[in-house]
């Protein structure tokens, strides 16, 4: 069966976003120094991850940065085998959700673990990394 005729658009579009991070600057700066921090509301005590300057619980704009430590427990994971084209140069990766003491959960790659060894309940440690472009990010490794 032959394809019906179509018009291939000539007008291409490329999107790149300049994402503001001024209100979470402390997070990225701390990460560079090896510390994993997030925001805690100064008024009601709510700890949020991802960090946010304004409290989603009581709407207070006053927050402080607290250290989450390094240790977490694997809650769930997946091994992504079909990756987005913008990750074409990356080997298939494990994405895990880890839970820190106090209940804060974080999503990140799990590195250095074979997919068959990833299981809910195993101990994780968060580690800072730097992208090829020089941007800080973080991953989990086995504790």
């Amino acid at each position, binding site marked *: 069966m032959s394809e019906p005729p179509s018009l291939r658009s000539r007008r291409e579009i490329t999107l790149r976003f300049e994402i503001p991070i001024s209100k979470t600057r402390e997070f990225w700066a701390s990460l560079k120094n090896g510390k994993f921090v997030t925001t805690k509301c100064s008024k009601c005590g709510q700890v949020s991850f991802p960090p946010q300057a304004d409290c989603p619980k009581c709407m207070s704009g006053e927050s402080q940065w607290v250290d989450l430590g390094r240790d977490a427990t694997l809650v769930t994971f*997946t091994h*992504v085998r079909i*990756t*987005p084209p913008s990750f074409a140069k990356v080997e298939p*990766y494990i*994405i895990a959700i880890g839970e820190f003491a106090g209940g804060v959960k974080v*999503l990140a790659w799990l590195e250095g673990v074979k997919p068959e060894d990833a299981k*809910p309940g195993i101990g994780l440690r968060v580690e800072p990394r730097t992208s090829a472009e020089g941007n800080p990010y973080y991953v989990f490794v086995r504790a």
Partner: protein
Amino acid sequence: MTRVAIVGIGHSRFGRRTDVNIGELAFESIKQAVDDSGVDRKDISNVVVGSMGSWSEESLPAVVVNEYAGLSGAGTMRVEAACASGSAALKSAYNSILSGEGDVAMAVGVEKMTEVDSSTTVELIGRAGSYTWEFENYGMTFPGYYALYAVAHMNRFGTTQEDLARVAVKAHHYGAMNPLAQFQKEITLEKVLGSQVVAWPLKLYDACPLTDGSAAVVLASEEVAKKLTDTPVWIRGVGYSSDSANMSRRGSYVGLEAAVRAARKAYAMAKVSPDDIDVATAHDCFTIAELMAYEDLGFCKKGEAARMIREGQTEIGGKIPVNLDGGLKAKGHPIGATGVSMAVEITKQLRGEAGKRQAPIKKGVGLVHNIGGTGHYAYVTILSRS
């Protein structure tokens, strides 16, 4: 307060529809729905279009669709609730009649997904969460999101990959009876289990396809509905809720809490319980999603969905037949069209027009469960013959 009924339905053939553009595709459903209802187009005060877009060339699908169908001049908007955009459109059209703004409104769902290559679509859908914290550094994918739930459900309740595969086999069994479905052939358990792993434990055959398609329903107030038709299908309950953008902020990964809240509201509004439901559609974008839906909707207890699918409780002849149109898995999942397509299916079932895949209708009540994103948006709609 007036009641609101579905008085006309329309549904395009789903699949890779390279023969039509978005206006032409929507027209197929709009024409059927208008003809089926018998309304005059000039009496339609409001046309709400569910469409997510970004993979097709038109930025303003609502006005493009209305222009093609001769509906320019009606009030209109495009609504977005990701894969639940169709149900959001239905709710918005329903509310416009309830509010007294007009007596007749239409909900249209349409999505053209195959105008860009499929890897671009993987890229775009992967961003359906929290971009900075999930995609920028970690390349999350849509199957990956649901795989997080699948692993947690398997770990907690002993649900197996075979149980997931059974959902796909059921979907294809009924899809084979639906002439509008993208896939109209049966598949085996072995075929599902042997298919390519996309995001472990989910495989290609655990996932719905990329689909072009449209669906439309005409809604009318009680007074107008009774003049138009002897078989109105009443919207008896509409429940909706949402959850966090970030997966890391979810309470658990064994069910969709937004769906539980939406279901509770819909049952309360319709004054029915899960035991009253004759037939349902569940949002099976991935097989795990259908299993979680059984539990979230109260069709079974938490952790018992695998048993339901093993025992055939969601097939014709079982406790509550689910997705007799083939579901998103076999019928196809044109994002914004899906919620409206589900309402069309349940209307057909309640009218007794579903042919070979007709469910026994005892209480005259059906349910639509439509999820946007990975439980980011949830809509449950209860329809009834009375």
